[in-house]
């Protein structure tokens, strides 16, 4: 379905992750792998070359027993807007293999254009991008579960979370087929949002005041989308990457762990 930009306001898909609810179970990671044909290899314990579009980090408050606290932080691609779509990775890609889509706010990744220079990986402050050092190999028979909605990647290209963009396309197709002009909030949800057993992830259009994501964090358009909700924060806010993934927490130390602070800094 073609959308006329004069009639439909640009969307800005974003994600809110409630860290008070997240239990670190890892369902989002596997939901993502199985939705997006993410490959695996014999040893995945070297996390530098282990491809996980969604990765759950474990952070602690650094206090000794028994005052230690743990928080899990799931990290998809942040789909940074920067200012006016100048995300760190998009700005450095020499092949236009990654691009910022003004209509959806999604940072794309076109595998066949990518020639593996990995500038984007160096530029991404969130380590959200992964390089295929090897050809993906599925044990005989296992390629049967591969989904046709997402093309498997080849050796030598970079890949990352796409906010399940193919689901957006399918939702638009369905809406068109059913004669609707727009898609509803529930029509397009990412695989991780759908799977999360704790209901910690909320996904939707940050520009749409009727969507839960907007109501939960109240992004402030005057300040590059910074959340008005005092319990909400974004990772490395001060870098100015303007990410579209927000986190909710009631714990102050968690909020602080989301950015680099000097020891004596408030």
């Amino acid at each position, binding site marked *: 379905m073609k959308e006329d930009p004069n009639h439909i306001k640009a969307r800005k898909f974003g994600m809110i992750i409630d860290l008070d609810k997240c239990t670190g*179970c*890892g369902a989002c990671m596997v939901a993502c792998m*199985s939705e997006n044909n993410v490959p695996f290899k014999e040893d995945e314990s070297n996390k530098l070359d282990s491809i996980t579009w969604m990765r759950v980090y474990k952070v602690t408050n650094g206090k000794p027993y028994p005052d230690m606290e743990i928080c899990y932080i799931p990290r998809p691609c942040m789909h940074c807007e920067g200012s006016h779509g100048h995300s760190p990775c998009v700005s450095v890609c020499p092949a236009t293999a990654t691009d910022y889509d003004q209509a959806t706010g999604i940072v794309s990744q076109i595998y066949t254009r990518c020639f593996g220079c990995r500038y984007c990986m160096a530029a991404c402050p969130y380590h959200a991008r992964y390089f295929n050092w090897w050809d993906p190999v599925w*044990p005989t028979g296992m390629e049967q579960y591969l*989904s046709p909605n997402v093309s498997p990647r080849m050796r030598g290209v970079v890949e990352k979370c796409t906010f399940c963009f193919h689901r957006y396309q399918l939702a638009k197709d369905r809406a068109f087929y059913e004669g609707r002009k727009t898609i509803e909030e529930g029509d397009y949800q990412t695989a991780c949002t759908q799977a999360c057993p704790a209901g910690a992830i909320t996904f939707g259009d940050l520009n749409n005041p009727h969507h839960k994501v907007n109501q939960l964090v109240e992004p402030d358009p005057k300040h590059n989308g910074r959340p008005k909700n005092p319990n909400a924060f974004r990772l490395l806010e001060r870098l100015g990457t303007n990410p579209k993934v927000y986190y909710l927490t009631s714990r102050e130390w968690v909020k602080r762990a989301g950015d680099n602070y000097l020891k004596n800094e408030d």
Partner: protein
Amino acid sequence: MSLGIGVAAGTTLSPLPWKVTDDLSIWTQRWPWTPVPEDGETSHVNSVCTLCPGGCGISVRKINDRAVKIEGMTDSQINDGGICILGLSGLQLLYGPTRIRSPLKRMGKRGSGKWEPISWEQAISTVVQKLDELRSQERPHAVACISGQKNGTVAELLKRFLTTYGSPNFMHVPSIQDSYELTLSMMNGVQAMAGIDVENAGYVLSFSSGTLEGWGSPVRMFKANSKLRDNKGKMVQIESRLSNTAAKADKWIPINPGTEADLALGLAYVIVQEALYSRKFVENYSAGFNQFKAFVINGYSPNKVANNTGVDSSIIIALARDFAKAANPLAICGRGQGDTPGPLAEFVAVHALNALVGNINQKGGIWSLPEPNYIRWPAAEPDETAKQGLREKRIDGAGNGAYSHTRSLLNRFPEALNSQKGDAIKVLLVSAANPLYTLPDTKSIKKAIDKIPFVISFSSYMDETARYSDLLLPNHTYLERFEDVVQPAGFHQPYIGLSKPVVKPLYLTRHTGDVVIAMARALKGNISRAFPWKSYDECLKQTLGAKLNSLMAKGYWIDEKYTPPTWAKAFKKTSKKFEFTLTPFKQPTRVLPKGDASTFPLLLIPYDSVRLANDRIGDPPFMIKTVEDTVLKGKDVFVEVNPKTAEELKLAEGKTAVLTTPTGKANVKIHLFDGIRPGIIAMPKGLGHNAYDKFLAEKGINVNDLISPVEDATSGLDAAWGIRAMLSKL
């Protein structure tokens, strides 16, 4: 000079370098080698996941005949669209390399991995011949069966087979459900399953239960935890290690491992002493309260309990008050995921706490659910040989003498076999279980299995037990077969689910139900007569009767109107009241771990993680990928050690050390962790497989190699929660 310009101009203008770069890029990316998944028509099949006892509804997305994604079923009352990490990985089991593709007969030594594929007819006749032989020797009781399922049609078919054949030795894999059942039988006086109305609880006090580690029905517990948070309820976790559950709780109370029962009784002391208990319940509907009161007042004052448990007496008092005064308080127990039945004293003490606050059979409390009664087959009629066999004592001692309340004691099976001369068991059937991996003290289980001349496994996957068997009769996987799913662990309303074939069987596998029916028919006589069905599907259809249609359409059946019996009618003891029993406390209340403290100064506790499947199913590749590099690195497993303990032992982060327990020895790596008490070390369950595929096998250590079962004095079930240990530099 001109040559230089010429070279530069030539290189720039020549297409050669660009062509080479392009080729290089194409060559390195090797595009044609990458699979292109075939597109086709999309459809969805609803079913029920049976990888754990959670009973979640699943919706499987298919492209033509291929299953491509498993998702949570949105209208399921259990998981409401959510799904766990194992459920999501199910297709890797279906299409994975660990499948057993046809009946296999062992060639070469046990465990050598040499097999000969045989036909189903050959396979079944081999079994029948062995079984016929035993009956002609009047030794039908020399057959035993280990089943991962306790009820449901397949388990009932196996039980029926054993009964008509003449063996009393049906053993199921134990869990905390067994301890909860015993508790309900001792205190409520009913033979029932424990249902926990966790969604309506306002204050959850958990005694080491890993509600976010896979306890009960995992996704349901995750959902309930989020709901509790939304409703501003409270969750308190008592546990010796900062588990995920403890990390997410409003309050974590570290405790000396194994002293949970003491703490529960200490809380009871405060509740009784300060008269915070529900008068209505205690005065009108309970018996034995005065004895119970005297017992806790005498022995469990907060000061004494503080000494044993390591929990400050002021915390005990405050906790008891909070708990008793909260709206809909609920106390639960059963360590980690609940695979080990645990000390009965703990269950009885915690159930007494629930009784004190009057939440037995109440909203947000502990319900007793009648056992499912939809399987109503005419009683089997064993012939004379069978009757004689059935009069023999069970090999595991259950239902006899000291263990008269307990139905099955798999933990006693290896010991019973190893202590006897000769071969008391000649044929072992293993269905939906992997005892060689999941039972503590793997060495002794292996020894016991070595004494059994003929082991048959029905496993769909080449797990440890299958690898060590003599004959493999592979079942369809749960995505290829019909099967009823009984009552998700801990769910509070009567429930039946129906697992449906999502895809046609990929290989020459056969439904275990069909195999049992075929075996029975071939054995003829009364055995054959007890199995009148042509196939398992026919048996299931007849059994489910009127429920079948709604099960086919919806996938599950729930008696949503079910309410537990009122206090006046709920208790079936002779007093017709709830009984504050002291039976398990007459024995030493505390189950002590194996080993002496002078040689083994540390305590090793196994821990559960929802990212590590540690039951009969091992981690599929996707799951093992999510395991942190502070748990598994390469082939090495990490044990968690408090920095203080590590300093005393001069061990640093990432260093290799030797971990010794009275049961075994292994090399491990050290991970410094402030979430564990000094003197205690923790090791994950679910690693150290030596079967399955290269993605899982030979990674880490199976903690069951290092721990031994400890028998509970009252129930006879395994109550071990850890073992004494020693860490030394390599």
